[in-house]
Every structure is written in C-alpha cells, then in structure tokens.
C-alpha cells in the first residue's frame, strides 16, 4: 500500500517561499500529475517527497509511514530525473542493476529483473552499451527502466519527456502510460506541458506560486476550473475572458450581449468560455475576425470582441476572412464565471 499524504508542507529558500502550506492526498496506485509553469514549486514538492529537500514545515507520509526526516533510500521510492542522470561510467545493464546491487539481491534475480524491465522499455539490445553511445530517447528509457527495476512503492518523475523532440515525446508518452499502468505503482509526475498532464493523469494538481490551485481529474480541471489561472493555463488555445457587469437579477452584460448568469455575489465578474465551445449562430457575441489560421483539423480565428482579443476554434470547412463580422454564440452549459478579485470560480 503506497498512498501518499502531504500535510501542511511548506518550503522556504532564505527569503523566498517556494511552497506555501501544501496539503495533498494521493491514493495507492494513483497517477498524480503536478502541473504548472516554471517556478510554481512543482519540482520542489516532488523533491521533498523524494527526500532530496527537507520541508521547512509539515509532514510527508508514504504507505502509512512518516518519511519527511528519512533519506531517499529509506522511503521506498524511485525517481526519474529530467536529464536522466544515467551513470556514464556504467553499462546500461549496470545502470539498471545499480539499485538492485545496493539492495544486495542475488545475481540471478538481478539478471531477471534487468532483462525484464529492459524488454519492457524496448532497450534489451542496448544492455552492453554506455550512455555516451545512446540517444536522448534511449537514455530516457534506461532511466525509466532503472526506476522500474527497483519495484518501488512510488515512482517520481521530474519532467522526463521535456528534453525529447516532439514526435518522440508523443511516442514515449503513450509507452509510459502503458508501462506505468501495468506496474501498478503510485506515480507522481511533474510537467509544465498540459497536454501531457491531461493525457497521463488520473488526477492533476495545478500549481501556481507555490500553492495547489486545483486538484481534480483532467476532465474536471478542464470543464470546471476552480480558478481563473486553471482556465487560462489548461487548454490550447486558452479560455477567453470578458469582463461582465450585472444589469438585473441573474442578468449580465457581456460585451454588448445580455446573458444569464449568477444571481448572488459581486456585481462585477469575468465571463469565460473556451474557444471550442463557440458556434457561428445569430444572437451571439459580436466579433470581428482579425487573424484566420487554418490548422487543418480546425480553423483558429482570433477576433475582436468588445475591443479585446478573443479566440474561436471553428470547423475547418467554414470560410472566414479577416475583417468579417461574426456572431459567436457560447454553449450555455460551458459558460463559466470568475470573481476578478479572488480569481476563483463562482
């Protein structure tokens, strides 16, 4: 059983607070992704769970044991680093076997585990090579194999795909998902790429400024962002935001259009809708197309709505030209509202 509980963990580096009081619970065998931009604290949190940093306050529990004062080797974890950290002076075989030798496992068992994980990661033909002779993608597989061979309770991954080229990243993502699911290990995965997060995670913790803004399933995070930040960070292109003022009970003025909205709460809110949740239908927001990008699968139109930029993702066979006036109707069940003061969802 390897559930992870993080209680009130904070981390300061001198004057700088990297993490403000994090509380998070991760279930056994869950695939949790820590998602955020650079500097949001996601790697710091991962390293605290790993034991490579000590928290300034708080507790870390793995599998029912309190581990925050223990060194990494006593936590039952294995880690895959962003730059792979494959030992250059050892062969691929010895790299994968490294942790097993430290555990003093008998040689036959070591051989068996190494070959098994190497086959899993499709590197069995590279076992006698050294890391200098491997490509980036191959080194990455070695790093993953090395972690898997430990058969840990928890696998921690720090942006393992970010140094690969786009095509390789796509392939590895799919492979990783399969391999990690089959291994039945709790996984914590750090990334800044929201597509990766959406594709791999059971749950995503969106982080910003050292705090977890929302921790929920990918669909939930996408459909019901808990804060403006989540809405603007997830989804490509990001959510559109328009300031709205109350004009009556449950009625709101949004860029010249009157819409139904929240009844209670402040008189000024932000109206939000995703670009793909718009259709060209009369009675919608008045938009003037400025830039039209035919992307093949769909067309991205950047318009002006109420004097501000506004994006819409439309079907590719619609012909739109710059300068056209359009009426964009939002799907009513996809409209979201945010309080501009607190940036939280309403």
């Amino acid at each position, binding site marked *: 059983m390897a559930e992870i509980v993080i209680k009130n963990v904070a981390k300061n580096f001198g004057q700088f607070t990297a993490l403000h009081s994090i509380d998070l619970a991760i279930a056994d065998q869950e695939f949790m992704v820590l998602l955020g931009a650079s500097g949001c604290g996601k790697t710091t949190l991962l390293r605290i769970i*790993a*034991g*490579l940093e000590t928290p300034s306050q708080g507790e870390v529990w793995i599998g029912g044991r309190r581990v925050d004062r223990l*060194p*990494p*080797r006593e936590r039952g*974890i*294995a*880690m895959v*680093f*962003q*730059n792979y*950290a494959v*030992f*250059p*002076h050892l062969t691929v075989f010895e790299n994968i076997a*490294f*942790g097993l030798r*430290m*555990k003093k496992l008998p040689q036959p068992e070591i051989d068996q585990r190494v070959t098994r994980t190497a086959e899993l990661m499709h590197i069995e033909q590279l076992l006698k090579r050294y890391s200098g002779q491997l490509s980036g993608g191959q080194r990455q597989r070695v790093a993953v194999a*090395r972690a898997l061979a*430990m058969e840990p309770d928890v696998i921690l991954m720090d942006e393992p795909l970010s140094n690969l080229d786009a095509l390789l990243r796509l392939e590895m993502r799919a492979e990783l998902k399969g391999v990690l699911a089959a291994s039945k290990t709790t996984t914590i995965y750090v990334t800044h790429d929201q597509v990766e997060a959406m594709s791999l995670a059971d749950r995503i913790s969106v982080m910003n400024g050292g705090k977890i803004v929302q921790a929920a399933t990918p669909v939930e995070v996408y459909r019901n962002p808990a804060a403006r930040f989540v809405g603007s960070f997830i989804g490509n292109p990001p959510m559109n935001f328009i300031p709205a003022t109350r004009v009556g009970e449950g009625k709101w003025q949004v860029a010249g259009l009157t819409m139904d909205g929240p009844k209670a709460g402040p008189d000024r809110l932000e109206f939000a809708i995703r670009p793909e949740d718009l259709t060209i239908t009369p009675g919608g927001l008045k938009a003037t197309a400025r830039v039209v990008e035919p992307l093949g699968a769909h067309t991205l139109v950047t318009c002006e709505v109420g004097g501000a930029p506004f994006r819409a993702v439309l079907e590719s066979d619609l012909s739109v030209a710059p300068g056209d006036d359009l009426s964009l109707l939002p799907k009513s069940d996809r409209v979201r509202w945010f309080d501009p003061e607190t940036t939280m969802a309403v």
Partner: protein
Amino acid sequence: MSVAVATDVPRPVAEINAAGKFLFVAGTVMLCAWVLVPIYLLVVNTLSSPQDVSAFPKTGIPSFDFGSLQFFLNFAGVARALWNSVLVAVLTMVLSIGIGAPAGYALSRFDFPGKATFRMLVLMTRAFPLPLLALPLAVMFIRVGLDDTAVGLALVHTTLAIPFAVLITFSIFAGIPIELEEAAWTLGCNRLQAFQKVVLPLVLPGITASAIFAFTISWNEVFAAAVLTVENRTLTAFLLQSLSVSPMHLKFAGGAALVLPALLFIFAVRKYLFAMWGIANR
C-alpha cells in the same frame, strides 16, 4: 561605398589566401622552433661528454656520450638530491589532494555562510609570493624539529599547491551534475557510497591530473627548497647552491634531470592541463 575604378584588377581569392597562409605557417613554425630549440640544445649538452660540453665551438650535435650523465649521477649528493625531490614531491601531491579535494567538493556542492570568505582566502594565497613564507617557517620548523626534512618542505610546497588543488578539484566536481549523486541516493546509497560509486570513477582522471600538477609544482620549486633544506637537499636546492662552483656539464645534466620528468608529466596531463589552468584562473 567606393566606386569600382576601371583600373582595379581583382586579385584571385586563392592568391590572397596563399600569402596569408604562408605567413601563418611560417609564424607557427618559428614559434615552435622558439620553444623546442633551447630544449634540444640542453639535450645536446646532456648527451655529450664533459669535454664536449666545455668545448668550443659547439656543433649542435650531441656526441652521444653518456659521460656527462654518469658524472652527474655519480656526483656526491646528486642521487640523494634526486631522491629527496621525489620524496617531497610525492608528499606534496598526496597532501595537497587530500586536503584540497574535499574543499573543492564542498565548494562545488554546498552553499553556506563563509563560502565567499573561504574562496577569498584561497585566491589571496595566489597573490602572495608564497615561497617567502619559507623564511618564518624555517624558524618554526627548527622549533618543532621539522627543519631540513622532506616533510617540512612538503608542507610548504603543499601551501603552494593547495590553491590550485582546491580550484581545480572544484571545477572538476562542478562538472559532475549533482543529479548523478541524487540518483544514487534514490537507488539505495548513502552520501559516501554515492560518492565512491558514482563521483569517484568520473573524477579520477581529473584528480590524477591535478595530483601530477601538484607533483610538478613541488619538483620545480626553488626558493623554499633552497631556504629549508641544508643536508637533505632537493635537486633544485642542490643545483642552485652549486651553480657558482659546479662544472658546466654537471649543470646541464642537472638541468636535464629537472626538465625530463616535468616534460613527461605535462605530456601525461596535457588534456587536462589547459582546462585546469584555464578554469583555475577564472
């Protein structure tokens, strides 16, 4: 933009390049000769008989007579001086790496109050004419019984070598990503094991090079050796003291004895030398 004049005849590009290239090659050859010829001349003298060494005019060709060398090696005190030089240099090598490498590691891995002060201390030692320290140390050594010993001189030479050792090992360790150690920690190693199994194999060539460099610094050092050794002279002290009275062929053979090991050492570490000096001086 100047207007092309009708009388301008464009020179073929190949011609211009040829002239420049010739200068370049000539310059390189001259500089190489500048470095190599004096050494060659020393070798000529070393490999000539004592008579040839004092003879005039010199032909520039060695007579391949080992008389000078034999005289040198059999000369009273030379064998001991050679042995002392080796002893002191080895001690210096061991001490400077033993003391300097941990400091280099600490500087490369940790951030702590006092780090800047320590670096300042190390850099300051470079600005000071270190051999002069031999003067008061001579007195101190007499009091502790270290005067005229290999250990005493090695301690002074180590002071000379430590700044290099620290700065060089610092850059060597800094070249090993800490992630490698961290990976080892997650794979079951404690700090010491991670160092032994991951860092050490990777830094060994560089550490060896800096050890050899420390050896060379000690082997070549003159002032402190002359000050601190009387009976147990090192080769440099011996040659210095006897300069005014020794015959020519002795001087030259002695010079060759100084030069040869240094040449070999520099050849052995040539890959690192340049990285070492370049980095050590930043």
